[in-house]
């Protein structure tokens, strides 16, 4: 299963807070 990437940092942070999860931020220059 591929990684379920988010693109919106603030939405991901809200999700993390709600679910008590850790956030992984990948800063990339690779083609999306």
């Amino acid at each position, binding site marked *: *299963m*591929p*990684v*379920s*990437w*988010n*693109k*919106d*940092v603030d939405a*991901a*942070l809200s*999700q*993390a*807070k709600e*679910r*008590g*999860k*850790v*956030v*992984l*931020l*990948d*800063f*990339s*220059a*690779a083609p*999306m």
Partner: protein
Amino acid sequence: MYPDERVSSFINDNFIPVKIHIKENPTGFQRFGAQWTPTIIVADSGGTERYRFEGYLPVEEFLPQLEFGLGKVAFAGSAWGEAERRFRKVAESYPEADIAPEALYWAGVSKYKATNDASALKQTADAMQSRYADTAWAKKASVWAA
């Protein structure tokens, strides 16, 4: 590395993952002070950065870095048991990884924090000396050996 099933499963199971592309979201780079790609940041649920590494890594180095990041999040939250478990898993499951000596060091610190028993530090110093003697982390732990 992301197409690797071990990596994608680990990320989906343990993180809310966010990809920030330099062309699509340059302000995201500024917000977190990312100056190179790839940069990986592990942040707690409040958005506070707890661990970062830069540059490409093969899967055998990347996975323990992620586990280590989870350990740092637990450590910052004073969840000493979970922190020790995460750090020890890095050292035991990936003993050849570059991050393993640092993980073993922090496993010992986490155990000490949980128990206030200085023997945890002595045991860590001994283990560092026997497994990772030539590393900076063994030098840092050497003060506990006396």
